[in-house]
């Protein structure tokens, strides 16, 4: 009896949010799919059925090719960079050095900053100006006689996106560090000691024991960083503005919808973004749900 009543109460309590999620998330996803299959261009809604026209056009759209290339570069550099750097920081902090708390906070602070602020700061640091107008990191490299490090940053053709990823790594590697640090602390000392007694080197301990035990953490980091990088928007806008060489699907969606009034094309890009994130997230959710059962 009592259990039933608790159940009713919990249903009553969460029903407003379920309703809101149904309308504002799933309802609008459905609406976006409908718009993406229409011919809507201009201010007035036009739901004429256009089938997969918008999607097919995107796949042969040279701008969308640039977007895919940039997303792959950004995701690769950002995810690998944040995970590797975060892991190294966590291992170093795990050595039991003095003032660990201070370092931990310092590495975590960037995460408290919004992408816009990060973007503005890195825009100054990564100033690509040459000659007498040189500034930021290039000026630092130049005055330290490290001329070979002076580069065009985000204005580099094709690989400019990697420069944007550097700013994102700076922001998010502290977060992966925190994840790994928690994971490292959860590994019982007995395991390491047993391995040492068996004559394992420190490298072998990390390679054969610690890393395999940290797999769930690495997976979480991969998913969280991966879906963030697919949606990246504000960081690019803050560093470089709307420039085609640094275009990503989210920026294309925004520009083509609100500047160009191609609503159906914008909706198609949005749905493709949703699918790409879902491909990453849904297996992860299934995996964690299974793990919880």
């Amino acid at each position, binding site marked *: 009896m009592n259990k039933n009543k608790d159940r009713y109460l919990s249903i*009553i309590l969460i029903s407003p949010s379920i309703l809101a999620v149904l309308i504002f998330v799933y309802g609008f996803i459905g609406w976006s799919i409908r718009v993406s299959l229409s011919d809507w261009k201009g201010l007035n809604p036009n739901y004429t059925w256009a089938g997969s026209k918008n999607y097919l056009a995107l796949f042969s759209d040279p701008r969308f090719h640039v977007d895919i290339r940039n997303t792959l570069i950004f995701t690769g550099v950002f995810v690998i960079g944040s995970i590797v750097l975060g892991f190294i920081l966590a291992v170093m902090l795990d050595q039991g050095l003095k003032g660990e708390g201070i370092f931990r906070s310092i590495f975590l602070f960037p995460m408290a900053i919004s992408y816009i602020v990060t973007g503005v700061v890195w825009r100054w640091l990564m100033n690509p100006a040459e000659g007498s107008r040189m500034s930021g990191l290039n000026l630092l490299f130049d005055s330290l006689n490290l001329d070979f490090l002076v580069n065009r940053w985000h204005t580099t053709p094709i690989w400019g996106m990697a420069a944007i990823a550097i700013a994102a790594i700076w922001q998010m590697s502290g977060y992966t560090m925190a994840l790994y640090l928690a994971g490292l602390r959860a590994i019982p000392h007995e395991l390491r000691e047993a391995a040492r007694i068996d004559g394992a080197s420190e490298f072998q301990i990390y390679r054969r024991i610690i890393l395999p035990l940290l797999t769930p953490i690495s997976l979480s980091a991969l998913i969280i960083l991966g879906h963030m990088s697919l949606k990246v928007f504000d960081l690019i806008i803050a560093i470089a503005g709307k420039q085609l060489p640094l275009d990503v699907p989210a920026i294309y969606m925004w520009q083509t919808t609100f500047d160009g009034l191609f609503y159906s094309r914008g909706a198609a890009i949005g749905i493709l973004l949703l699918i790409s994130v879902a491909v990453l997230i849904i297996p992860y959710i299934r995996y964690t749900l299974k793990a919880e059962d």
Partner: protein
Amino acid sequence: MSKKFWSSLIAILLLSAVVLTACGGAAPESPAEEAAPAEEESMEMEDAQVEVFSWWTGGGEAAGLDAMIEVFGAEYTDVEFVNAAVAGGAGTNARAVLASRLQAGDPPDSWQGHAGQELIGTYVVGGQIEALNDLYDAEGWVDVMPETLIPLISHEGNIYSVPVNIHRANVMWYNPTVLSDNGVEVPATMDEWFAAMDTLQAAGVTPLALGEQWTQLHLLETVLLGSLGSDAYDGLWDGSTDWASAEVTAALDDFAKVLTYTNSDAASLSWQDASQLVVNGDAAFNVMGDWAAGYYIELELTAMEDYGWAPTPGSVGVFQFLSDSFTLAVGAPHPEGAEAWLKVAGSKAGQEAFNPVKGSICARTDCDPSLFGEYLQSAMEDWGSNTVSGSLTHGVVANDSWKSEIDTALGLFVAGQDVAGFQDALVAACASSGPCK
């Protein structure tokens, strides 16, 4: 234990009751307050308001708007002015907000928009704004504005907006000292320009300062105008000049060549940064609209000494304009207030209050030149005498969809430098979103 359940439920009910009364309590208060005076002062009071939507929230633009609101307030003392300005450069944010308001059926009475196809292609075609021919006739505006302007802001013979100010797009700014040091004259044609830039490049000076992508589009439109001439340039936008023609190829080749004279860090510079390069002596030329004059005045520089100006090469005698204008919404909640606002926006007093502060010239040709600075006086003279052509970047000649397709083609071209592919994309853009069939 069921007691616990009931007490929780009662707590929730109580809580929601409190929330509901809090929300409900606030709402009736204001109508009650307003209801009393409305009854006394007749029905007209309800209409005595005008909501004007713009993206003028800072600098000379906001100050100019305030000056014009003051003129409005003095003339229409009983009409309340509601300033619904949304911040964000060149109105990108504001237009997204406006689009959602229009789709929700909640239009402001009047909104700012670039005169020409930006308004026509979006809002006239969408049936969102009213024709203003009667107002133009009643106020005699056709007689005080340049003859060549009217067709550019009309659609099927109807005029849809009231231009408040005029900016010139085809202005080339230069550093007089850098030019004279290198023995270069101010170029008037494309060939002279290329020769001058060769000399400057050989001397180790960056010939042309350029900024981020929209300034590149701005440069493209002035090169198209200079290379094609105003008739063929105008024809691009009404379908009478073929985008696939050899003369357009030649113009695009010119543009590709112009890009070779620019600074390497263009993508990371704003238009102000690029303007600054010229007055600092880091570059010789810059092509930018005449808001650059306002920026130079802000920097307390001296005209014709620290900076000089001329029409962009090949466009002498042509005034490539852009203009901010105000509209009348279809289904405006306060049509009388909106009309009053438009009358002020088109009046001599309104424009003379707005423009000297904003740093632009009047759309009317009868404003008093003594109110304006040195550059603007020269612009006013040209406005009254030159052939008027429209700007692409600033919304006069192409609708938003077309412009955004051209912008994408330009971005791909700047990254890849493929003139033939660029021209193909421009032809396709005109076919999909322009008048070309």
